[in-house]
């Protein structure tokens, strides 16, 4: 067998191997958009309706049996609170908080309720190495606190900064966040406590797909009132909770720079290659090695062969 033919063979197999590795990667990227479970529930939040009464916060506290708040839920001084220069965020003791914003040129303040947005493809879930998180077919992103090891990867991964850490509990480190009232309500098809408690029906509960239609409809019926965007329709691949507003979203503290596809897509291609590398490469390169050393002698074998040859 000539050297040239072997080189040709090697080149050919490399090209083939590369093709094999690239094709599933592309496929994984293309199939990245998971549109959510077809019957997944969602909540449409209409910021134009919120008056900042904090009833949703009180309802959440009661439903989730959270500890007593530092201030009464009808104390509106919390809207002026700044923590390290930031407005309030959900904590392990309050899974939802309302903040006040003053958009430019608007006479009325704008209130925004924050809680987990229950992404179609949650980054907290994909970042969790003990698989504590689950996206349920009902649409909730829930977690199993029994397996949580308290690594806080999800806190860093979440594009909305939602998961909070229970620093109080040294022996049982655990992440806490809104679970869409999954255990007590959503499982039975009932809306979460905050939605039901709201006097202004800021939040509308329903199937995500239908709510999206409703949101588009509200905007098209009142084009002068709403900005033409549904925040969460496309952001990070779509979220279960999404928002419509009369002021540009960035003025209510929304991050407008988030990608329009799931964050996992950044690494999906790479992750798809990993198993290929682990399974195909060893076999492939062992093959190359055997081929390239066939009929040749190296190392120990070499000496032995030389001896044999010399003997002959």
């Amino acid at each position, binding site marked *: 067998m000539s050297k040239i033919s072997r080189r040709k063979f090697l080149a050919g197999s490399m090209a083939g191997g590369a093709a094999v590795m690239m094709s599933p990667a592309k496929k994984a990227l293309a199939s990245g958009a998971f549109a959510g479970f077809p019957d997944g529930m969602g909540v449409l939040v209409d910021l134009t309706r919120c*008056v900042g009464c904090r009833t949703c916060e009180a309802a959440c506290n009661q439903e989730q049996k959270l500890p007593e708040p530092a201030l009464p*839920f009808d104390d509106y001084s919390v809207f002026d609170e700044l923590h390290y220069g930031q407005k309030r965020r959900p904590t392990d003791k309050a899974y939802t908080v309302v903040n006040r914003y003053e958009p430019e040129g608007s006479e009325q303040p704008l209130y925004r309720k924050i809680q987990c947005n229950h992404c179609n493809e949650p980054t907290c879930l994909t970042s969790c190495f003990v698989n504590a998180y689950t996206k349920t077919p009902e649409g909730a992103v829930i977690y199993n606190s029994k397996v949580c090891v308290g690594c806080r990867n999800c806190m860093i991964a979440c594009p909305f900064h939602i998961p909070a850490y229970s620093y109080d509990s040294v022996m049982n480190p655990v992440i806490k966040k809104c679970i869409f009232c999954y255990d007590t309500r959503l499982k039975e098809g*009932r809306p979460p406590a905050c939605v039901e*408690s*709201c006097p202004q029906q800021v939040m509308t509960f329903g199937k995500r797909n239908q709510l999206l239609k409703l949101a588009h*409809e509200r905007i098209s019926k009142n084009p002068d009132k709403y900005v033409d965007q549904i925040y969460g329709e496309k952001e990070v691949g779509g979220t279960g909770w999404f928002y419509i507003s009369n002021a540009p979203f960035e003025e209510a503290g929304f991050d407008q720079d988030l990608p329009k596809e799931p964050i996992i897509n950044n690494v999906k291609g790479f992750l798809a290659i990993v198993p290929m590398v682990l399974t195909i490469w060893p076999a492939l390169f062992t093959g190359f090695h055997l081929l390239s050393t066939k009929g040749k002698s190296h190392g120990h074998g070499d000496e032995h062969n030389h001896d044999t040859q010399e003997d002959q």
Partner: protein
Amino acid sequence: MVTTVKEFTAGMGAVLLILVLAVGCYAMDYPDEVEIDVLANLYEGVVFDHAMHVDATGGCADCHHHTTGTQVSDKYCAKCHDGTQEMDIVSCQECHSAEPLSPDNLHIPRPGYYYHDDKPNLKAAYHLSCTGCHQEIDGPTGCEDCHAKTEAGERFYHSGEFAPDEPAHESGH
């Protein structure tokens, strides 16, 4: 479940408006005062000064949609209802359900009724109607401007006699 629903629906003792059953204001045959307490729980009911609001508003249709014989103010209602056609239904709760919105009663557009969908529930119908106007005219918009908290309400909001002992500042992150 009924208790919980009631509890939540509550807070709102209900804002104004219209329990004015079948009383047309066009005929000046309307109650001067209406007590709206059908949802009262966390808050007391609202004693609504109907007579004052009749004088203060541009007409019955400002609150009662198109149903009472005065000119229609909503441009979408006006597409079909010309303002002279009176309707039998005057009270909010005959159309707006007190039940919380569920996937089953989420209305999606039906042919011919495009503007009848997306109907708020009763609690929201009251509050949106009141606060919507009050925000525009700088009227009262605070919860207790219209109705006082009940004991259940104070417990729910951790306020009044159920307020936290030490209002220590909760640290964030």
